[in-house]
């Protein structure tokens, strides 16, 4: 068996220092192969978002080893990690993190712009991505003019517009009604099965988790259980 796409070994993350220090991750081991669709579940505060941020190279662990395609991420410099994010990762934040006063279209185009795609390509790709999440007709709206669920879908469009190797989504359906949630899950399922995009998704809803083929449970900063779903 080839090396897993993603491998965490003994990852810890401590926030703060001294008395106020808080260990959000206490030694996480996890390996995920290319093409998997993983749901991460667990109680609030169990360290799911913290783990996702580390997986997305947005944050550095306090200790432990993170290998991406066999490469030790700790040994990459800032620019190399930025390039890794640019070329391989798509991230949907729990809090959306869209650029303010910027149209949905421009928000979605941004990752392509940093990839150096020409304007015409960016345009079509962004429109297509917005259409996939059911936002055709909303291209010119800024985040302030969109509902929470719509913003969330713009964030998803921004993450999938580059067809990333790995899609990291932190509660991508947290603000959506169940019909929309199922639509998004079907979209993710298709991206996974048709384009082979590896998906790691945090969710609180067992319904949504069942679209994934594997469920990882976090409790108190540790992986509590790791099991295949019946869909697998």
């Amino acid at each position, binding site marked *: 068996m080839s090396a897993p796409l993603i491998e965490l070994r003994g990852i810890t993350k401590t926030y703060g220092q001294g008395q106020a220090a808080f260990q959000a991750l206490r030694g996480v081991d996890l390996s995920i192969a290319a093409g998997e669709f993983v749901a991460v579940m667990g109680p609030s505060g169990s360290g799911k978002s913290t783990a996702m941020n580390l997986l997305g190279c947005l944050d550095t662990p306090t200790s432990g080893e993170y290998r991406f395609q066999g490469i030790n991420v700790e040994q990459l410099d800032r*620019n190399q990690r*930025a390039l890794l*994010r*640019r070329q391989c990762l798509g991230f949907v*934040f729990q809090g959306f993190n869209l*650029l303010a006063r910027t149209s949905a279209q421009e928000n979605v185009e941004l990752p392509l712009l*940093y990839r150096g795609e020409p304007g015409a390509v960016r345009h079509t790709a962004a429109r297509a991505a917005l259409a996939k999440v059911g936002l055709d007709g909303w291209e010119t709206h800024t985040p302030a003019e969109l509902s929470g669920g719509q913003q969330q879908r713009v964030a998803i469009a921004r993450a999938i517009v580059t067809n990333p190797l790995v899609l990291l989504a932190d509660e991508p359906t947290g603000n959506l009604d169940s019909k929309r949630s199922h639509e998004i899950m079907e979209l993710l399922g298709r991206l996974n099965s048709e384009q082979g995009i590896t998906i790691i998704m945090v969710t609180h809803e067992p319904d949504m988790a069942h679209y994934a083929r594997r469920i990882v449970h976090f409790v108190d900063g540790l992986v509590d259980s790791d099991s295949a779903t019946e869909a697998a």
Partner: protein
Amino acid sequence: MILNALLLALREIRRNLLRSFLTVLGIVIGVGAVITMVTLGNGATKMVSDQIASLGSNLLMVMPGQRLGPGRDSAGAPKFKIADIEAIQQQVNGLKAVAPVVGSPVTLVAGTQNWSSTVSGTTNDYFISGNWKIAAGRQFTDDEERAGKAVCVIGNTVRKELFGAGNPVGSSIRVKTFDCEVIGLLVAKGQGGMGQDQDDTVLMPLRTAQRRLTGTLDIGSVMVSLKDGTDATAAIAQLRSLLRERRKLAENADDNFNVMDTKQIAETLSGTIGTMTALLGAVAAVSLLVGGIGIMNIMLVSVTERTREIGIRLAIGALENEVLWQFLIEAVVLSACGGLVGVALAFAACLGLSSLMHIPFLFNPAINLTAFGFSAAIGVIFGYVPARRAAQLDPIEALRHE
């Protein structure tokens, strides 16, 4: 990459119009104020020094009465007589011209026009000491001076008021009770150092003015001009001792006349204006600083939002350098726009104000560059430095910034 950064920078500027506008405004005000004040100050100094130069050699004004000042009284002091003038001409060395002046305010009438002006009764020496040139006609003849004939040479303002654009030479003006023939027109000089209109003047032979206007043989003042290279201090000392002797002043008595060196006055004046310019410059520098602090404020206030923006950009794949280029270009574009608008506004303001204030407009590249450079530097530093700090964070830390 730079092209992308340019695109992004321009987008951000357009997207945050108010912030951009305030930044630009801060720079515009700072740059505009400094350049305007310093340029106008320089113009005023230049005007005064030009006037000093136009005085030619030193000019002394001799007037009866004690040194001017509070509590001094010039009413009782004896006036000069023609004999004093002759004595000065003969006994003081190094003089170019000695012109007695008898001044009298009059109303002038020519045809249907009338005008209030001042007559100076004097001699042909006045043209030398006052540095007056004849534009049309001629000076007084010896005969006219000796006989006190009713002739006059008028200044350009009097010409304009009484004759419009026409040639006044040969016409006649009614001065108080008598008719006076215009024999000459003076070349216009414009405004004097104190803002008075030098061309609002009528010159007559001394005798004419004494007989027909003042009715006495008194002489109001004497204008003495020195030959080039004459030591003004020595000439003044000689003049003083001569007049003291003629006025029979005791050894310890104060002068009952005074001698003013106009060149010295003008020099003092230009010194004062220089001080004023420095003061204005200081005020302007403060406004530049205030403008700079304004820019600083705007930049710092927007740091939180911008830090988050940087976090987002880094998270979705921007390189640190790309983010920095974007912010640098933004800062440079805003600062440069502000600087250029400031320079342009200052140019317009200087042009308008200098013509309004009748001072020459001297474009000063150094101050333009300094003001521009300073404010641009502030804009760039305060736009770029916070961005640099933010871009060095892990993306998640930038996103969490509060």
